Each structure stands twice: as C-alpha cells, then as structure tokens.
C-alpha cells in the first residue's frame, strides 16, 4: 500500500496536490510533508485532488484538517476534489463537508478559490 503525491502549480498562486492510492496511518505522513512544504513556502491556496484516492482514514482526514487550519491562518483555503462515494461518505458522517469545499472536478475547485 502506498500513496503517490504530485504537486503542480496552477493558475495564479494556486497549487494542486494530486494524490493517488490509500491514505492511512502509514502513508499520511508523506501527504502531510507535501502539504506542509507548500505552506512553508508561502502557498496558501491549495486544491487537493482525491479523485484517485481509494481509501482514507482519520489520520488522512487529520492531515487535511491540519493543512486547512494552517492556510486559514494566512487567509488561504483548501478545496478538495472528490468523486468517490465511499470517501464522500466519510466526509459526510464526520461533518467535514461543512469545513471543506468539496467539488466534483478540478476546475470547479479552482474557480471556488478565486
């Protein structure tokens, strides 16, 4: 089990983090490092693409929440792209749908940042 993390610059000062694989207690530190590195470099508007994520647990959610808290301190935000019904369900039952902007595709997530 692993997670592949790709970071790319998009429009303006927005960065997209593409995640592919499973996010759990073993793999989430890799995601945390990638998001933390972007924030450390002063990038506070992020789109995290979960379209290719097959599984996420509470440690993965914790990493996303931690990233959101940090960017909010600088007036930024984190939007998510998520189409997997099982993962959307996890955001629903934990109440995180009220905290994150969750979109069906990257364009919509990007437009909501502007």
């Amino acid at each position, binding site marked *: *089990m692993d997670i592949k993390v790709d970071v790319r610059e998009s429009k303006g000062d927005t960065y997209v983090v593409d995640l592919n694989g*499973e996010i*759990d*207690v*073993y793999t989430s530190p890799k995601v945390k490092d990638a998001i933390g590195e972007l924030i450390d470099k002063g990038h506070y508007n992020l789109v995290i693409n979960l379209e290719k994520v097959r*599984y996420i*647990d*509470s*440690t993965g*959610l*914790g990493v996303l*929440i*931690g990233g*959101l*808290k940090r960017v*909010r301190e600088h007036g930024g935000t984190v939007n998510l792209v998520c189409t997997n019904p*099982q993962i959307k*369900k*996890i955001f629903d*039952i*934990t*109440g*995180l749908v*009220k*905290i994150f902007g969750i979109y069906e595709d990257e364009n919509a997530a990007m437009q909501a940042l502007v």
Partner: protein
Amino acid sequence: MPQSQGTLGVVELRIPSKAEWVAVARLAVAAVANRLNFSIEDIEDVKLAVAEACTNCIQHAEGSDQIQITCETGPEGLTVRVHDFGRGMRPEGLQSIRTDEPHVGGLGVFLIRSLMDSVEYDVNPERGTNLVMTKKVAH
C-alpha cells in the same frame, strides 16, 4: 463467495503494533467480511472501522507491541474483536467527536461508532484494551 447462512467461522490474526501493518489487518478482515452477504459499502465500513481500531491501539495504547484481531462470522453478521496487550488506552484514545470546526482528535472513534452497529470497549490496565464491534447483515 458468500458463505451459507448460519455457518460460524472464526479467523484470528495478530499483527505488530506498527503503522505499516494496519493495511494487512484491514484487508484480511475485508476478505472475511466478503464471505458474508454484505454489500460492498458494508465491507468498506468494516474495513475502515478495523483500521481505525488498530490505529487507535498504535497511537494510544501504552506498552503494547502486538494487536490481536479476531473475526467471528455468524448468521447475524460479523463480530470483530481488536485487542491490544498494553496497560490500557489513554483517555484521548476513547474520545469520539464529530467536527463542525477543524478538529483532529476523536475522529477515529467517531467513525467506528458511526460505521458499525454496536461498539463496546473494555479497558483494563492489566489485560489491555478490548474493542468488540459488530456489523449486522441486512436480511
């Protein structure tokens, strides 16, 4: 292949209390759940609940280097026991919280309670922590 209704099966697994082994536990339990007439969504629920329970042991159980997972299948569904051999769970390991604010702690226990039909904890400083959770098969 779904097993015939009423057949009792017991599967035991013991993993090191380390992050890299949690995937083994959740996939093994998913394979057991797949023997019953669960929907794919139910199997995903069980998988996540087991992973959360193991993660909780790794993060909050003091003095335990092993986690034992026991699955019992029966006509009503699946019972999973997750047992660590530590000195009992620290209180933060048993918190359950749904979040309307960005908050990290307690999500794992909240998920377990949300995804399974019944959840019981037995915390004992001498025997460790035993979590028993059940998922019923929809008839």
